[in-house]
């Protein structure tokens, strides 16, 4: 098993936040979306269709406990908001079947499209969600509704988990991987020849032993990941207005290289791109409340 040493190194930091400009007391509806993924869970609280607060936490083995942890984190940020004030809660993500607070569930595909539509703006037409365990390329319309999507959830190549394994191997905080991948000397290296994370790990160890600097290895790995993601995006077709959600959105080492392959910059957002799924779920919950269709089961 992995030692304690690495435990803090490769993990990304948890966070929560509250929008100081919104007062939930005046809101007609307060809804919540909870996204339980394979390595992280988020809860987003929405007051009348605007994000009031969110919590972004690492997952444990227990999906139900992870959902509660994310929710507690969001409530803590929200301050005086009592949990009983929630009008409706929608669960989404890989672990959505096991969220105790959820009144209903939706697929993460729908939620990520809707969330990106809010976080990145209504111009977004292609949403690339790169999470811990899968990559989704989603095409959506002007309302944030899914038109088509493709997904890779069989293989760790190109996923956040693959990146964590790599960061762990090199002993580098996962949050620094992107920046350091640009700090190599000389010509840019070609992508690693292996897609498979297990083989890429051996290949990287070989390069380090040959005297490669860590930054150069990171550059080769990030290039390979960008190529891998690009192959999926190419199959759905990329529009010029494209956005990235999920943890990988924070890794510029991969995303900037991907943008160069596409030839168009990705859309930026001031929000934490990891909350897109939960935000989408909370926004769907708000729509249901407004239409009087929020039936609790």
């Amino acid at each position: 098993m992995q030692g304690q040493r690495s435990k803090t190194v490769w993990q990304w930091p948890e966070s929560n936040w509250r929008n100081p400009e919104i007062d939930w007391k005046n809101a007609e509806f307060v809804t919540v979306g909870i996204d339980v993924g394979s390595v992280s869970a988020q809860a987003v609280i929405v007051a009348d269709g605007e994000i009031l607060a969110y919590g972004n936490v690492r997952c444990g083995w227990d999906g139900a406990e992870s959902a509660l942890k994310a929710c507690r984190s969001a409530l803590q940020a929200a301050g005086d908001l009592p949990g009983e004030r929630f009008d409706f809660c929608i669960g989404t993500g890989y672990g959505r079947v096991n969220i105790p607070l959820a009144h209903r569930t939706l697929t993460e595909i729908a939620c990520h499209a809707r969330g990106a539509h809010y976080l990145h703006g209504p111009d977004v037409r292609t949403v690339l969600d790169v999470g811990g365990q899968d990559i989704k390329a989603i095409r959506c319309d002007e309302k944030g509704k899914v038109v088509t999507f493709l997904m890779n959830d069989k293989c760790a190549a190109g996923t956040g988990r693959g990146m964590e394994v790599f960061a762990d191997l090199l002993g580098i905080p996962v949050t620094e991987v992107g920046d350091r991948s640009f700090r190599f000397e000389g010509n840019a290296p070609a992508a690693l020849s292996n897609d498979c994370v297990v083989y890429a790990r051996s290949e990287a160890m070989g390069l380090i032993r040959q005297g490669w600097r860590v930054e150069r290895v990171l550059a080769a790995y990030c290039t390979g990941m960008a190529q891998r993601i690009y192959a999926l995006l190419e199959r759905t077709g990329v529009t010029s207005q494209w956005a990235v959600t999920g943890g990988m959105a924070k890794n510029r080492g991969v995303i900037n290289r991907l943008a160069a392959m596409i030839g168009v910059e990705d859309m930026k957002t001031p929000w934490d791109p990891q909350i897109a799924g939960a935000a989408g779920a909370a926004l769907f919950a708000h729509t249901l409340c407004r239409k009087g269709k929020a039936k609790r089961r």
Partner: protein
Amino acid sequence: MGIFAGIDCGVKHTKTVLMKDKKILGKGTGLTGFDLKKAAEKSLEAALNAAGIRREEVGRIAGTGSGAHLLTIANLRVDPRDAMAGAARHAFPGVRTVIDVGAEEGRAARLDEHGNPVDFVVNERCAAGAGIFIETIARILDVSMEETGRLFFESEKKIPLNAQCVVFAESEVVGLIHADTPRSDIIRAVFEAMAGRIASMIRRIGVLPEVMMIGEVAYNPGLVHALKHELKTETIRIPDAPEFGAAVGAALFAAQKGASA
């Protein structure tokens, strides 16, 4: 007839056999590491020592395996399918399907009634059908590779493994450990998943009896059992020292070439 050497340069180990008159005189192994020329020299030397013969007595040296193109001491390079066919002819003539699963690669060849390779498939892109999967899980479960083969048969319950990827399976197995799942059940789930991957590769060329398996993974009776089940075959024949199978095949190929030259 002279003495011939077959060197199989794998990702993890380099294996050498010395053969004369279709009989094995000596075997040697070296860790491939990052200097496969050194590994080849080392394994050849070990084989020479074991056989008690001098380097000068060796006629032709044949190289095969994933690093064969870098082997400078070899006089000829043997295609993996010819090496597999040679291994079959040497151990069990009549075999029609040869499976070779090593540390990081899996291969299969279908042979015609004369033992010539007619179809071939290889997986070198995904770790889920290779020996490294067993190694990874053994490490997480803190058991030796040998123990995994034994523990497999102690399993009392079939549990599914959702992950198809070694990296995801690692996380899933840690979850199973947390849920107090017996190690034997976890190993069975992993082996069944792995056998499924290997079998789906082999099915692309078709499975004809008899089936033979070489490569280091053939040492694991649990995995072989799971593979038999997946392939719906009653027996999988395994030669002595299966990890030297491809090297034996290569040496035989060198001998044939020598005879015809």
